[in-house]
C-alpha cells in the first residue's frame, strides 16, 4: 500500500511538472475545458436562480382549502388535526373569514364589500408543501376534497406545472449541453495526451527496457489528464462566479420592477466539488482512452 501511494505521488509530481513545464499549452487547454464546462455549470446555476426568482415573483405554490359556510370551530379544529398528520406539508395557516374579508377590503374592494350585509367568505387554510411536485399537489387536493367540512380545494397546480415543466426543460438542455461539451473535453485531453506520449516516447521505451509495467507507464498520463480536468473545472467555476458578479446588479434591478428582492446565488461547496470532480473524471477518461490507443504504438 505504501509503495502504491509512493508510485502515485511520484506519478502525480511527474504529471504536475509536465503541466508546469509548458504553462502556455496547459493554460490554453485548461481554458478550452473551462469554457466548455462553464456553459452547463452556468446553466445549472441559472436554473436554480430562475426557480428562486419565479418563486419570488409568484410566491410559493400553495393549496387553499375553503371550509363549508356552515362549518364552525369544531370542524376547523378537526381539519387542523388532519393537516398536522400530513407528512408532506411544509406549513399551513388558518385564515378566519373575518381576516379574509379584511384582506379583500385592503385590496381596494371596500366600496363593493360595503354593499354586502353578510360576510360571504368562508374560513380557509392556506397550505404549502415540502416539494413542488404537481402530482403530489393533485393527490393531496383530491384527498382533502373528501374531508368533512371542506367545500372547495383550490391549488396553484397550473403555475406549479408550468414552472416544473420549464425547469425540467432547462435541466434537460443543461444535461445535453454537459454531455456534448463533456465529449469535447474528453477529445481535448485525448489529443493532449497523444502529444505527451509522442514527446515522452524515449522515456517510455527506456522504462519498458528497464522492466516498467504498462500500469507504471500509464499512471503519470492518467494524473496529467485528471489535473488538466481539475484546472478546467476551476476555470469553469471562476467563469460562473464572474458571470454572477456581472449579472447581480442588472438582475436585482429587473427583480425590483416586480417588487421582488433577489440576490443571485453562486454554486455552493457541493456543486463546486461536483464540477471539479466531473472535470477530473472527464480528463481521466480522455487520458485513459488516449493511452490505450497510443501507448501500444510506442
Amino acid at each position, binding site marked *: 500500500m505504501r509503495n502504491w501511494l509512493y508510485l502515485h505521488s511520484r506519478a502525480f509530481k511527474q504529471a504536475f511538472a509536465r503541466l508546469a513545464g509548458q504553462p502556455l499549452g496547459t493554460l490554453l487547454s485548461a481554458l478550452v475545458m473551462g469554457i466548455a464546462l462553464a456553459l452547463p455549470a452556468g446553466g445549472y446555476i441559472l436554473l436554480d436562480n430562475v426557480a428562486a426568482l419565479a418563486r419570488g415573483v409568484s410566491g410559493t405554490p400553495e393549496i387553499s382549502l375553503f371550509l363549508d359556510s356552515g362549518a364552525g370551530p369544531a370542524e376547523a379544529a378537526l381539519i387542523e388535526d388532519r393537516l398536522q398528520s400530513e407528512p408532506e406539508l411544509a406549513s399551513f395557516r388558518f385564515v378566519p373569514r373575518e381576516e379574509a374579508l379584511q384582506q379583500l377590503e385592503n385590496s381596494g374592494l371596500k366600496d363593493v364589500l360595503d354593499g354586502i350585509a353578510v360576510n360571504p367568505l368562508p374560513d380557509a387554510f392556506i397550505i404549502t408543501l415540502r416539494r413542488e411536485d404537481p402530482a403530489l399537489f393533485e393527490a393531496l387536493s383530491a384527498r382533502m376534497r373528501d374531508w368533512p367540512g371542506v367545500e372547495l380545494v383550490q391549488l396553484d397546480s397550473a403555475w406549479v406545472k408550468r414552472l416544473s415543466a420549464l425547469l425540467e426543460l432547462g435541466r434537460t438542455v443543461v444535461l445535453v449541453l454537459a454531455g456534448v461539451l463533456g465529449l469535447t473535453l474528453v477529445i481535448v485531453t485525448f489529443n493532449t495526451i497523444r502529444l505527451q506520449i509522442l514527446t515522452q516516447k524515449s522515456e517510455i521505451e*527506456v*522504462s519498458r*527496457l528497464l*522492466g516498467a509495467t504498462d500500469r*507504471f507507464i500509464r499512471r503519470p498520463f492518467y494524473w496529467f489528464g485528471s489535473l488538466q480536468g481539475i484546472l478546467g473545472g476551476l476555470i469553469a467555476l471562476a467563469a460562473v462566479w464572474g458571470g454572477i458578479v456581472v449579472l447581480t446588479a442588472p438582475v436585482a434591478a429587473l427583480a425590483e420592477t416586480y417588487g421582488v428582492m433577489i440576490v443571485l446565488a453562486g454554486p455552493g461547496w457541493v456543486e463546486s466539488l461536483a464540477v471539479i470532480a466531473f472535470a477530473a473524471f472527464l480528463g481521466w477518461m480522455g487520458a485513459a482512452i488516449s493511452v490505450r490507443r497510443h501507448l501500444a504504438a510506442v
Partner: protein
Amino acid sequence: MIVFDNVAKQYPGGYTALDGVSLKIAPGELVVLSGHSGAGKSTLLKLIPAIEHPSSGTVWINDQDVSRLSRRAIPYLRRNIGLVLQESRLLFDRPVYDNILLPLVINGHPPGDAARRVAAALDLVGLYGREKEYPAGLSGGEQQRVAIARAFVNRPSILIADEPTAHLDPAYAAEIADLFKSFNSAGVTVLVVTHDAALFRQWTPRRVILAHGRLVET
C-alpha cells in the same frame, strides 16, 4: 543459467538472423560474444530480455521459458536483467541521479534504500558527486558509465551489453571493461557483445563467435 535451445529467428521479409543456435551460459560466467556485422549478435542478446522472440526453439533464463512468457510477465523478467546498449539510451532531460534511480522506482524500492543504492552505483562507476549533472554535459564514456550504473543499480543476476564501448576511445573502453569484470567477480553472469576481441582478453573469458546466424565457436 541462460540456455538457447535450437533457437532460430526470422524477420518479416525472410531475413534469417539466427539459425539453430544452442548455447548454455552458466551462472557467474563472463561471455564475450563476437562476429561480423549482421551475424545475429544483437538479435541473440535481445532474446534474453524478450525484446525479440524466437521464431522457433526455446530461450531459458533461470529455468524460465522466456519465449512463452506473457506480455504482462516480461517487465518482471527484465527487472532481473541489466541491459547496456550501444547508445546509452539515457533520459537527457533528467539529471544523472534520476537516470540511475529509474530502475529502482520501477521496481518499487523504498526511497531511502533507493538513494543508498544510487550513491553506491555512482561511486562504483566513478561519478559520485556528479549526480546533479545532466547527461548532455558528460563525455561519451561518462554517459556509458551512467548507463552501466543504471543497468547494475537493481543488482541483477544477469548483465548483458551490446557493444558498450563502440564509440569510446581505448582508455575509456578499458575502464568500461574493468567495470564489467568487477560485476562478474561479484557473481553476476555477464554477456558482452563486442567487436574488440582484445578488450576482455586479460580475464580469459569464454568466447562465443557467431557467423551468419550460426555459432561457429563456443
